[in-house]
């Protein structure tokens, strides 16, 4: 989606975290692997927290589509009622 390449999507991050938790719970991975999975999990959480930082609420107006099918977007500021 709009996510920058470095931005992991929430749903992906949480899915991976669930998998990591399952791996750790089942205890079938070696201690070494467990630890690296834990580290990965912590990293994912950090990224998720990071995404909740930039709370600039973006609103755009779609005026139409251009000849190549790309969206023609403009800034939009809601008028008072």
């Amino acid at each position, binding site marked *: *989606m*709009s*996510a920058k390449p470095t931005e992991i*999507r*929430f*749903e992906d991050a*949480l899915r991976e*975290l669930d998998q*990591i*938790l399952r791996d*750790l*719970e089942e*205890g*079938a991975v070696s*201690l*070494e692997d*467990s*630890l690296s999975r*834990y*580290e990965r*999990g*912590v990293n994912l*959480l*950090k990224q*998720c*927290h990071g*995404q*909740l*930082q*930039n*709370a*600039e*609420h*973006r*609103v*755009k*107006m*779609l005026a*139409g*589509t251009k000849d190549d*099918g*790309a*969206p023609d*977007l403009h800034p*939009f500021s*809601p*008028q*008072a*009622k």
Partner: protein
Amino acid sequence: MPPTATPEREVLSVNTLVNRARGHLETNFQTVWVEGEITGFKKHSSGHWYFTLKDERAQIRAMCSSGANRRVRFDPADGMQVIARGRLTIFPAQGSFQIDVEQLEPKGLGSEELALRQLKEKLRKQGYFAPQRKRPLQRWPRRAAIVTSAKGAAIHDMLRQFAIRWPFCEVVLRPCRVQGEGSGDEIAGCIRMVSELHRTKKLQFHAVIVGRGGGSAEDLKAFNEEAVADAIFHCSCPVISAVGHEADWTIADEVADARASTPTNAVTLFTPLHTDVRRNLSEYHARLRENMYRRLQFARQEVEHRAMRPVLKQPLRRLREFEQRLDDIADRLERAVANRLRKSDESVAALAARLESLSPLNILSRGYSLTRTPGGTLLRDAAAVRPGEVIVTRLANGELTSRVEAT
């Protein structure tokens, strides 16, 4: 008695007779209203409709020309009670007397309402409302489209709700008229535009919210149009309908993947509350740590068990290194999120307290057990033993020695 010629006798051709009679009928029954039941209804390929109107005692043939039936708002069918307006005439070629219907209304229901019911029935048969085709909504949306009027309360309410709950979602408004002649087609066109952008990946959306604020039934009419239903049905991304108030239920609501009672409610059901998400992340953090510590405790126990037999001292040292690394990672995470995350401090504190109690025996006391081969190898995989072999299970209190029946 022999026939006597009467000089005033006038012999007419059939055609003249029928036409005279037709003249009488058409002059004296120019406009009649008649109520009856439709039977033998047929749509001819010419576009004209033919049917019979009947009641318990009589019947009359009826014809509704293609010009006239274009204005009929519902689909007539056998068994329907209707009121027809028309004039009487004779169809000369058959000599049959009939009513030429100019106007046809269902009895009981208004024709608008009947048309709406019939459209609903038609769409239902085509599977437009099927629950199994409703798509789930993205739980952490990053971009949403809104098709509604750029003016008015609806867009204002929705944007405010986005800002309060989940400001991380970009909102793309596609403004359009939401009432008046042609607004249904306009709404449908806007949904198709959004759908096309999504489908071609030019601009992707986690959902499109289609709606408007409250109004009279007449104001909401556009959302009952077939064009809007079609656009929603074929939309490439999930659609949330948000039309009017709780009590208003339109066809758009039935077709959409999710139906919101109001525009504000649409945003509420589409977005998480950001504080909930933060709490959720903290919970993940806690579970991760808890699991990791438990994993470590198992490992420690395993090593200690072996260490009791005077063999290896090395693994214990190695384990301590692991524990140190774990603490180190945890510390780094805490530093990273500490200032963002007051809540997580509490859960980390709670976790620390819980970890105190995570001694190996405490783990066993919660119902876990450790199973080993008589040689002392910890069993993790049923395939590691064969039927007939002896295994030893350590419980919180005591040990069990068992023989494997099957794996």
